Each structure stands twice: as structure tokens, then as C-alpha cells.
């Protein structure tokens, strides 16, 4: 529920309720006031009438009719005789009381009567009667004229309250809008400047948080590129010097080929660990663009072709032009890892097939090979970090560290894609299918955003944990 609607509703309800109660109170008070005024009038009139010692014949006709106009009825009794009465008065005595006020019914309505007697039993008696209805009418008139303006003003009041609240909540609305329009990985400071006492600490705290978070991300990003530089340059030195020593030796030795192999393996592990870091959500979901998946696959096959050709494997690509929304860098890593995995685990002279297809709104990327494949019971575990099929009996000639498929999984999750492992029906080896959902890129982005926080912790702990573990083994 919006605060504005809530406030408008509550305020209007309270105002209506208070007005209503005030009206009831006012009505009662007006009624009392009207009663006492009318009573006093009756009293004065009765006193005046009884004081007039005039004969009935001498009475002015107008006096008798005046009663009819004001609804005031009167009777003048001399003992038990009705001497004089107004036209609207009945013939019976209007009040049985000897003196004072009473209320009774006659002539079809309720009357307030006042009796004034002069002296003893046989003396004159004036009875004045006024319909009670008159008092109600007066009280209603008074209260209505007091309450009506408020009731008429109610819509105006509602509008005014609504506008005022909207104005008062403007800083909050502004802040909400800004937060809403922020991209998942936009950690820039909030532009909302507010002097509002309630919002200032919120904006301040949020900005502080953003600052710290972007600092952390920045360090994370730098870690990857710094580590890349710090590790890759010495690795290059190693490789070149191994080459130079080989040249100097002038002949092949087993020690030298072990050395070459180990350097290559180390280079590979370093590369994969950096990839794992580079493809972490906060690094990747920054820029998602339209990516030509087909040309990306073509480029990747070209990049990997020397290794594939060296092992006399054949590779083919079956793909229409497919455009996908995602992060180009990480998609390239995904394809690279899948194809290089297929090549690694396929014997010399084997075959690798890469294809893409649209299956019910989904874009499916398939990499299959003629290698030994993976047993179905191992399908889940191969995505674990450092897990290698066959464990220690693993063919040690194959350079790998068990991170390839973890990285693939990482990237697939980022793109909201599913990975499925199965046996290739044609080549009999492993078949990896990565299916991308085309329509819910928004969802993918949201998911990426949500996993960001968890993933930051996971990745940084991985990065920290990986290095010592690696050196142990």
C-alpha cells in the first residue's frame, strides 16, 4: 500500500469522523439552546397574556390569528371556562398541569405547553403551546448551516491533503525512482539531494554502502587483471627459457619435456582460475549486448584449431546465424571451455561437432564428441570445482584442473541457461547442451543481480581458497 493513499484515507476518515461527532454534539447543544430560548419566550408571553385584564371581546382579532402563523396556540381559562383561544388551539385543556412546562400530544402532533395561573382555583389561567417540531427544525437549521460547508469542502479537502502529501513525499518518490532505474551493477552514488530530516540519513547510508561496495568490486576487478599480469609474465619467461634451454641442449631430454608439460599445465590452471574470477557475476553482468553466437563459435574454433589439428581431430560447426543477448567475453569463455574440453577428452583422430538450434523459443548450443563420455552417475559432480572424472586414475597426460565445467556452469547461470549432459547419439561421446532462454533476458538480469551478493562471497572465497589448495596438490 502506498504511504500517500494510506495517509489520504486515514486523514479523510478521521476528519469525517470528527466532523460527524462534532455535528452530533452541536445538534444536541443547539437543541438545548433552542429549547431554553423558546421556553423563555413562552414564559414571557404567558406572563404578558395573564397580565392583560381585558375582556375577551376587546381582544384584537389579529392576536388570535397570530398564533396560527407562528404555530403558537394559546387558551385563556377562567376557572373551568374557556374564555379565549387561538384559532389553532383545541377546545380541551391543552395541559392538565396547574402551572409550569409539560409536553403532550394533541391535534396530531407533540406540543410543548406552558401553564400560568393567577392566584387561586377560580382565577385566570393561560396555557401556551408550541409544537416541539419547531425546535427540531431550528436546531437542524443551525447545525446544517454549520456542517454543510465542511461537507461540501470535503472533496476539496481531500484534493488538498493529497497534494500536500504528494509534495511532502516528493523526496521519497524521487529516491524510489532513482533506485528503481539503477542498473543491477550501477554502484554510482545517488543523485537525490534532500534536506529532509528523515531521508538524509537514508541517502547518506545508501551512498556510503554504494561507495564501499563499488570499492570492493573495484578491488575484485583489479585482483583479476593484476593477478593476470603478475602471473602471466613470469609464466611467459618460464616458457621462453625452457625453449632457450632446449635450444642450447640441442637434443630432447625427458626432464625437459616434463618441464615443458608442467609449465603448460601451470599456465592452464592460472588461466582457468582467472577465468573463474573474470566470469563472476559482478564482473560480467555489467555489459550485456547483442552477441552473434555463430561468429563467436567460429572465432573460438579458429583460436583452438591448432590444438585440434595437432591431434588430428576433425571439428565441424552446424549453425544458422544466431543472435543472443549476453556478455560476449563470458560467452566466449563458455564456448572455449566446452570445445577445448571436448578436444582434450577425445582421442587423437576423433570428431567434435558443434551446433546450434532453436527449440521452442530456446536457443540450444550443443557440443558433442567421440570421446569416452561421462557416466550418468557422474553428471552432477563434474560441475564441482577441481572434480575430475576418474579421480586419481585420471589420464595425467591431459592438461586440466577440473575447473572448466565449473566455469561453464558459472556462465550458464549468469545467462539463465540450462546445461544438460547426455550421450551423443551419433558420436557416442559426451554431449553438452546449453539452452538459453531467449525471451526472459530481464529475468536473467534480475537473477544475475540477485546472485551477485552470494556470488561475490563465493568467488572471493574461491579465489582465496584456490591458491593454497593448488600449491598443496
Amino acid at each position: 500500500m502506498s504511504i500517500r493513499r494510506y495517509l489520504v484515507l486515514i486523514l479523510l476518515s478521521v476528519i469525517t469522523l470528527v466532523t460527524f461527532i462534532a455535528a452530533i454534539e452541536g445538534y444536541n447543544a443547539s437543541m438545548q439552546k433552542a429549547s431554553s430560548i423558546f421556553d423563555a419566550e413562552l414564559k414571557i408571553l404567558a406572563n404578558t397574556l395573564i397580565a392583560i385584564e381585558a375582556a375577551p371581546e376587546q381582544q384584537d382579532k389579529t392576536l388570535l390569528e397570530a398564533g396560527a402563523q407562528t404555530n403558537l396556540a394559546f387558551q385563556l381559562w377562567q376557572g373551568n371556562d374557556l374564555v379565549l383561544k387561538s384559532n389553532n388551539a383545541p377546545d380541551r385543556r391543552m395541559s392538565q398541569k396547574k402551572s409550569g412546562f409539560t409536553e403532550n400530544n394533541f391535534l396530531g402532533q407533540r406540543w410543548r405547553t406552558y401553564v400560568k395561573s393567577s392566584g387561586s382555583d377560580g382565577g385566570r389561567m393561560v396555557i401556551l403551546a408550541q409544537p416541539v417540531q419547531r425546535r427540531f427544525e431550528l436546531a437542524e437549521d443551525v447545525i446544517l448551516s454549520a456542517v454543510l460547508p465542511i461537507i461540501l469542502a470535503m472533496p476539496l479537502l481531500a484534493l488538498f491533503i493529497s497534494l500536500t502529501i504528494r509534495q511532502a513525499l516528493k523526496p521519497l518518490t524521487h529516491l524510489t525512482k532513482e533506485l528503481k532505474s539503477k542498473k543491477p551493477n550501477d554502484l554510482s552514488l545517488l543523485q537525490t539531494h534532500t534536506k529532509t530530516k528523515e531521508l538524509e540519513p537514508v541517502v547518506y547510508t545508501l551512498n556510503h554502502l554504494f561507495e564501499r561496495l563499488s570499492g570492493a568490486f573495484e578491488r575484485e576487478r583489479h585482483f583479476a587483471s593484476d593477478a593476470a599480469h603478475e602471473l602471466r609474465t613470469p609464466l611467459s619467461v618460464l616458457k621462453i627459457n625452457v625453449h632457450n634451454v632446449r635450444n642450447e641442449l640441442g637434443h630432447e631430454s625427458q626432464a625437459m619435456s616434463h618441464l615443458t608439460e608442467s609449465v603448460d599445465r601451470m599456465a592452464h590452471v592460472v588461466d582457468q582460475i582467472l577465468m573463474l574470477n573474470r566470469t563472476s557475476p559482478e564482473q560480467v553482468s555489467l555489459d550485456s549486448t547483442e552477441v552473434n553466437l555463430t561468429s563467436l563459435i567460429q572465432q573460438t574454433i579458429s583460436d583452438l584449431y591448432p590444438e585440434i589439428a595437432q591431434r588430428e581431430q576433425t571439428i565441424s560447426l552446424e549453425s544458422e546465424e544466431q543472435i543472443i543477448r549476453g556478455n560476449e567475453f563470458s560467452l566466449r569463455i563458455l564456448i572455449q571451455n566446452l570445445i577445448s574440453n571436448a578436444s582434450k577428452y577425445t582421442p587423437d583422430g576423433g570428431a567434435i561437432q558443434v551446433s546450434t538450434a532453436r527449440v521452442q523459443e530456446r536457443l540450444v548450443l550443443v557440443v558433442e564428441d567421440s570421446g569416452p563420455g561421462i557416466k550418468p552417475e557422474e553428471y552432477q559432480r563434474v560441475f564441482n570445482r577441481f572434480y575430475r572424472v576418474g579421480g586419481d586414475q585420471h589420464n595425467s597426460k591431459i592438461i586440466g584442473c577440473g575447473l572448466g565445467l565449473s566455469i561453464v556452469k558459472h556462465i550458464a547461470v549468469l545467462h539463465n541457461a540450462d546445461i544438460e549432459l547426455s550421450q551423443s547419439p551419433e558420436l557416442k561421446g559426451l554431449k553438452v547442451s546449453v539452452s538459453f532462454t531467449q525471451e526472459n533476458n530481464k529475468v536473467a538480469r534480475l537473477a544475475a543481480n540477485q546472485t551477485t551478493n552470494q556470488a561475490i562471497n563465493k568467488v572471493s572465497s574461491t579465489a582465496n581458497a584456490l591458491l593454497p589448495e593448488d600449491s598443496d596438490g
Partner: protein
Amino acid sequence: MRILLVEDDMPLAQGLQQSLRHEGFVVNHVNTGQLALNALAVPDQDMVILDLGLPDMDGLSVLKKLRNNKADIPVIILTARDSIEHKVKGLDFGADDYLAKPFDIHELLARLRVIERRLGTAKTSVIQLGSVQLDIAAHKVGIDGQDINLSKKEYMVLKALMENAGRIQSREQIESRLYDWGEEVASNAVEVHVHNLRKKLPEKFIQTVRGVGYTVNKS
């Protein structure tokens, strides 16, 4: 061929110099971008191996300044950064080739030879793959010493493939070579040329990587 090596990491520079000298290249080494620009102000270098991570300026700025100044001197970029943007930028700024660290020295040598042959500074202008020889200087192709007749375009296609032996050349890459020649290219031109080349060359010399492009094997 005289190579200017721009690299700030001394052990790497020394190792590289040793390897390159062993292959018969003349190597001059500088370790900052400014020194590189100074050295290239006089035209006595044939090509540059440029590391992107330099202490005084970004390697890309060195490349940019170099290209602004005039020089169409060939440049191979070395970098420890793995981002694709750097590769694309490097090539956009006019680098001739790109190698990511840790690179294979054989890969570097292969690319140097392509440049060498292009510059005409190679000891031999002949690329020999299996029984096929391609003489870049004489624009001649032979099988076991027997010259064969190729059209200009067929020669260009074969040269592109043999210069990059072991690597895949996509149809687009080959097409761009033909465009360089200044010819209009029909949509199936490359297929037609490859088809004709295959008839004149040994069986399986040009291989098709289905969906990607063509290649010839290194050996």
C-alpha cells in the same frame, strides 16, 4: 630482420632476445613507451614487438602515436590482459597481430615469419608445406618442383592459407584479401576458387572446417 622489442619485464625481454637471436633476428630492446617512440623516429627497424603493459604509458597509446606519425611498420602486440576488448582495440589501432601471454614461442616465430615474408626480408621467400612450394617473391606455386598455373585470385587464396598454415581462414578473411586486390567478389567466389585450387593441388591439401572456414596443415 631487425626487431624492436618493447618490454619492461627484464627476464622476459632477455629470454625473448635470446630466442629471437637464435632464430637469426636482430633484436633491439627498450623498456619504456617513450624510448620506443624515440627509437622508431629513425627508420632503422623492420618491425616492433610491443608489450601493452608499459611503465610510462599504455602500449595502445604508443601504437596510436606510432600510427599517427606515419609508420606502417608491422607491430605484434603482447599482453598479459585477456580481455577481448584489448585485442579488438589493438587490431583497430593498426596492430598486425596479437599474442596473449603466456604465449608459445613457436607461435610468435610463425607470425614473425609471415611478416618477414611480407616485408621481403626473409632469407627465403618460399613457403614449403608437404610437396607444395609457394614462392612469394616470384608469385609462383609448384608441386615437387613442378610449377603449376594459378589465376591471380587462386594464388591470393592459396597464399592466405599457406601463410597461416595450421590456422583456420574464414571465408570472410579470405574475401577481404581478395578485396585488397581490388576485385569485386561474388558471394560464392571463395568456394569457387577453393574448388579450382583443389583440382590443381594434392588431395586433402586444403581442408574444409565445416561451418568455419578453410585450412592447410602445417606439415
